[in-house]
Structure formats: C-alpha cells, structure tokens
C-alpha cells in the first residue's frame, strides 16, 4: 500500500472541481460582488435622473439618513445568519429613543448611553432566551417583543415626545455635527460595520454564528453551547436597535415613542438585498452595508427626481424585486 496517497477512494473529481467548474465559480463571484453590481447600476441610473445625486451634500445626507437602518441591519445580519429573525428592532429603537431622552436629563452622557444600550440588550436577552433556550419560534417571539417594547416606550413617555432639555444638548450636538467632513451618525454606523466585519470574519463568535445557521446540530455536537450564541445575537440586535433609537433622539432632539414603526421591514429588506439568506449561514458585513445603501439610494433618488409619493411605493416594490432577481441571477442562470 505504498501509493495510498494516490487517489484511493477519491474520484479525481475534487481537484477538477476546483479548477474547471465555472458555474459555482461564477456564482461565487456574483454572490460576492452581485450586491455591489446592483449598487453601481443603481448609482449610474440615479445620476442620470438628478444632478443633485452625485453631490457631496447628497452623499452625506444619504449616509446620515441610513445610519439608523444600517446599525440595525448589523444586528439583523447576525440574527439572520443563525436562521432567526428579529421583528422587534423598530420598537426597541423607540424604547431607545425615549429612554435616551429621559436619561440624559439625570445622568452623565456615558452613563445614559450605557443604560440605553443595556435596555436594548435586555429586550434582546428576553427574546433570545425564549428563542434559544426554550426553542420557541423567533418570528412570533420577536413579534410579541415588537408589541411589548412599543407599549413600554409609550407608557414610559406617556405617549408624549420626551424633551431632553438643555442637559440633552450634548447628545444633540453629537447627533447633528460633523467630524472630518462626515456626519457623526455616519461615523458611528461605519465604525460599527467595521467592528462587525472583524467579529464576523476573524472571531470565534462570528464563525460559530455562521456555522450555527448552516448546521446547528453539527455545531452543538462539536461541544459548543449553541443556545448562548443564539441568544447573544438577539442581545446584539437589541442593543444596536437601542443605539439606532438613541441616534434618532440625537439627530432630532426629541425622544419619541413613534420612532421606527415598520423599521424591521426596511432592515430585513436591506440585509436580504445584501445577499444574506433567511435560511441562515449565508451573508456578510460588506454586502449588508451595500444592501443598506441600495435601499437608501432608492428612496433618495425618488425624492430627488420628484417621484410622487404613492408611486414611490410601487417603484420601491419593483426595484426590490429586481434587486433580488439580480442577486439570485447566478443561481437562476445555472438551472
């Protein structure tokens, strides 16, 4: 058995596979750059529709406008990677918006921010516990959290917008000013995306989150405590949603319980346009960011081009479909 290394039990197939198979190679390529392609196409289209589009001011606007959705999309990406879904982000954002306006009145800024993040994380922990440890369906649990957190935000604020008062000036200054030419909310979003990139690609946590979405049982039988990881992604999502809510308060100067109604749909759409699969295991940070920007550009250009309100909704629907078709075109063509 001297030559056991030479292809016993191994059809010469695998080497060939890597070398020759164009299909999956192309598909992989599109899976990686498909979102980018869609984005570029959209930008090209947009710049023919309005001169205002390719201006620095508009780019700045766009980044700032999408900062909330972007931050929530990061958390949602983690959740979706584990095959989950989080419908509660919009409501938790509302809770974050309200509590941040309340807390800055009596606490130091860092304490206030930390408390807001903690509240969001706690909401996420409740959902996460029920989903991960009691194995209840994420859709319904986070739907319940969506209802509950919104109710809580309304109760806390008594249904009234909460004015942070003069003590909230620091927060509002942060929310409305620029650093190195970019709005602070945009910086915050970009840094969180960068951190998420590092975590997802280079950390034990990120890798296992992805693995759990692909095959939870295999991960469990590798000796890993799957429920902790699954619960964690909801904690992250909740914390980030609260941050998104805090940003709204920082930008607008008022803490409102009406923040983020139906935001979960935008956020999920952005993540999926970014190529993530709701069946788990597939998705990455860079494409999620591009997905967020795609969604942003769609709305932005329709405003710039003066598309009337109701028609915007119809176009939005059509463009989302086109994006998903393109996103999946590699797969479609292969068949």
């Amino acid at each position, binding site marked *: 058995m001297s030559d056991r290394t030479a292809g016993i039990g191994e059809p010469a197939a695998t080497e060939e596979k890597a070398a020759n*198979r164009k299909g999956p190679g192309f598909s992989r390529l599109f899976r990686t750059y498909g979102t980018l392609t869609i984005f570029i196409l959209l930008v090209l289209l947009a710049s023919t529709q309005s001169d205002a589009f390719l201006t620095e001011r508009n780019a700045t606007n766009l980044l700032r406008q999408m900062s909330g959705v972007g931050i929530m999309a990061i958390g949602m990406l983690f959740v979706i990677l584990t095959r989950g879904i989080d419908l509660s982000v919009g409501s938790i954002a509302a809770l974050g918006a309200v509590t941040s306006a309340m807390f800055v009145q009596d606490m130091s800024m860092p304490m206030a921010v930390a408390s807001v993040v903690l509240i969001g994380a706690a909401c996420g922990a409740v959902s996460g516990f029920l989903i991960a440890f009691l194995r209840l369906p994420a859709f319904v649990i986070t739907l319940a959290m969506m209802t509950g957190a919104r109710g809580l935000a309304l109760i806390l604020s008594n249904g009234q917008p909460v004015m942070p008062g003069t003590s909230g000036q620091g927060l509002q200054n942060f929310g409305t000013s620029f650093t190195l030419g970019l709005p602070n909310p945009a910086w915050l979003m970009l840094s969180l995306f960068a951190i998420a990139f590092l975590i997802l690609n280079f*950390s*034990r946590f990120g890798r296992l989150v992805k693995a759990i979405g*692909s095959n939870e049982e295999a991960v469990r039988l590798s000796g890993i405590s799957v429920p902790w990881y699954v619960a964690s992604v909801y904690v992250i999502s909740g914390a980030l949603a609260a941050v998104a809510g805090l940003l709204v308060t920082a930008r607008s100067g008022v803490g409102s319980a009406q923040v983020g109604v139906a935001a979960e749909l935008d956020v999920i759409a952005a993540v999926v346009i970014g190529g993530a699969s709701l069946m788990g295991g597939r998705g990455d940070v860079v494409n999620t960011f591009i997905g967020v920007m795609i969604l942003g550009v769609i709305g932005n250009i329709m405003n710039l081009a003066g598309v009337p309100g109701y028609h915007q909704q119809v176009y939005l629907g059509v463009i989302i479909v086109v994006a998903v078709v393109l996103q999946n075109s590699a797969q479609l063509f292969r068949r």
Partner: protein
Amino acid sequence: MTALIELDDITKTFAGIHALSGVNFTLHAGEVHALCGENGAGKSTLIRVLGGEMRPDGGTIRIDGEAVRLSGPMDAIYRGVSIIHQEMALAPDLTVAENIFLGELPARIGWSELNRRAGELIDRLGFDISPRALVADLSVAHQQVVEIAKALSRKARVIVFDEPTAVLSIGDANRLLEIIRGLRSDGVGIVYISHRLDEIFAISDRVSVLKDGRNAGEVKAEDANVETLIRMMVGRPLSQLFGDKPETDIGKEILRVENLTLPNGVAGISFSLRRGEIVGLGGLVGSGRTEVARAIFGADAISSGTMTLGGAAYRPRSPTQAVKNGVNLVPEDRKGQGIVLDMGINKNMTMANINAVARMGFFQPRKERGVVGALIKSLQIKLGAPSDPVSSLSGGNQQKVVLAKWFHSGGDVVILDEPTRGVDVGAKTEIYSLIHKMAAAGKAVLVISSEHAELFGLCDRVLVMGEGRLRGELGPDEFTEERLLTLSIGGGDRQGREAMA
C-alpha cells in the same frame, strides 16, 4: 429476449466534470443487477438519468427496446421505473398511506380506500406498519419499507435501490434482501447500489462497476469474488481491508459506565473502556447503540446510572461538558450532525477545539493554517483548497474531515458511530488506519457499526446490544457473525440463522 432497460453510451457533465462518459448498462426482467464503484464514480448520476430526473448530455435510453426521451420523473414512473433514493424521499408530516400514493393521490381523497390499499401493499411486504402512522414516527427501516411500497404501488417493473442498506442494521438489511428476492421472482428488474460487497454477492445476478464515470467492467456474481470487484473499483488490488493493527499497549481504564439507563428504554448498560483499546458496539437497528453513545457524550439526558472518567465522576449535561472532559463523538449522520457542509474544510476541522487556534476569541490565521495543514496531511484528505466548502468533497473525505475535527480536539475517549457509512472501500481502509492511529495515541475508541466484518476486523472486543440492553461481549476468538446475531437477537441460534438467511 429484449432487455427491460438498455442504457447506451450515456454521458453527463456538470460544468466541466464528466460524471458519466459513455456508460452502458442493461437490465433484464427478473434479475438483480448490482452497480458498484467508489464514491463519486457516477452511480447515483446514472440512475438519476434512468429515473428521468436528469437529462443525459448524450446517449440513448431504451425501455423494452424502444428509445425514449424521459421528460421527468413522472415519465419514468409511468414507464415503470421507480427509484428509491439514497436520501429518503418521504414527507415526514404525512401518513404512510399518503406517502405511498404521493404521486397519484386522487383529486378527492377517500381515506378508507387509500388506507386499505396501502395496508395491502405493506402486508405484501410482510411488515406491520399502520397506513395511518405519520412517517416522522417510523424507524428508518420502516421508512425504507414505505419507499418500497411506494414503488410497488406504481406497478414498477424496474426498481432501483441506491444504497438502501446504508442506514439499516444487518437484520433489517437481511429482511430487505428478502423482499428484493421476492420482487425478483415476481419478474421485477432490480438495480442495486451498495458499498457493502457481501450484500452484492448475496443478492445480485450481475455486477457492473463504474470508475470515474466509465464502465470498468461487468461480471456475473457467481464468477466474481471480493478481490476481483475491489480491483475493478479501485484499479488495483487491496491487500488488506482492515490494515495492520499496530501493537498498542492497552492501558488503564479511562471510562466506566455503570447501569446507564435512559428515558427511552435503554437500561442497565455497564461497560468500561481502556486507553489504547478499540471496542466495538454491535446490534440491530433500534437496539439503542446510538443513544448510549449520545448519552455518554451529553447530547441526550440520562435517567440513572453512573459514569466515571479517569476515576472521577462524570455526568455531562451537554456535549460542551463532554468535550471539556475529553469525550468525543463522531455522529452517525454525517451531513446532519457531523459537519457544516457549506463551511470551509479548515473551519470544520478546528471547530471542536477553537481555543487552540484562537486568542482572546480571535483566530490566529497562521496557527490555524498550520494545524489544518498538518491534519490534512496526516489524514491524507484529498481536497482542492483547505478553504473549499466541505460539500466539495466526496463522502469518504467528508467523513475524514469529521475524524480530523476530533483528532485535533485531543480527547481521551472517542466514540465513532457508523464511521464508514456510505464510504467506499478505498476510503474505508484509510479510516480504519486512522482509528488505529487514535488507539495508538492512547485514546479509548468505541466503534458502533452495523457491518460485522468491520467490527471484527477493527476491534479488540465487541459489545452487543439488543432491545436497549447490553446482551454480552465477544472476545477476538468469538468473532463470528453467528455469535453476534445470536446475542443481538437474544434468542437461540435458530433465530439467528433465520435472520441471516
């Protein structure tokens, strides 16, 4: 006499890969024609072509001498060709009867009629399964029976079995072979795919071998023996299937299980494992071997009993605790439980012991590359790049990745549940030598297998389970199929022989 099926010069390529090139295959009524070959040789592809699930790129399919173009699975079924798939094609949330008649349910369903007809078919196969049972609640063996009943319901003249026994214990496998013999005498033509060569000889009239998508030869079963078949499959003789058992020192006892009782009927299991030892665990399907393994690994709950590991009390509440204590499990269901298919080979390999290649929760890429490289080398895994997804590997190599994972994690006790299921002979010998390596490294190895030859060739002693009880233990001098079956069935020798027949 015209052949029932004639496949002539069939070619099929997948994006550059020649899965089949110029393959010929014939089948007559009332014969069993076996199809052999290594993993990835093209067996499943050939029968997908025959079953109308894939259109060949070239070649002719003749049924009853008439050239046909199959438009889809229904077309093939309509012409009397039924396929029983490697991955079972049943809807678990539906009843047995519905699954049997899935393709031909009447627009308005009359349940009593449907159940009656299903019952007749199951009776004909000699099984006692309620047509109204949900498939999800059936054992794998019974699910297999449903598949066969489904084929019978379509008045199939050709039934193709793609590795039907891979998930069956020997007892059930034997019952299946009995059914196939019955079908053959009814004039049905059978194509039989299996990696178990003993079965091939037990059941088939003719054997065709595929290698790298080409015909590597066809022989009458009575004219061939294991060696000739292996030579055709692998391209050269394979002197020793089980390899040389290296002289290992059997060391101190490491795991002791006493009176282990589980909520599902497994009870009173006591045994111990020593370092350097390979112990087999045999028995029929449903005898509870997998469940014992999972309980030791902390994957399922224990009702009562004690375990000690290295002298200390051991009662894992999760696989995490088991792994921390150095107990590892290679699960029986590779794709479902062993690997993350669409993740990189490298990432799968380090998953069970990430801390060895990470610091403060972040990976150290150089260290990981080193570990992965060493594992690939020592396990002789054939792959494109270490970062390719595991799904790009053949079954045998996938199984090696699972083994590599636990090689790397460095536990003291390794439990292997059906480690060579669905793996071709070549890869098997490599896996056996890996198991030897594990033992040589001082681990205690427990091997669950439904292939008796494997247990005997590999193990120092074999524990036998039946109906949730440990029925006995065989030493090397007692390694005969008869002894094993007698123990596992729990009756006298007569019953054992019957099950063998």
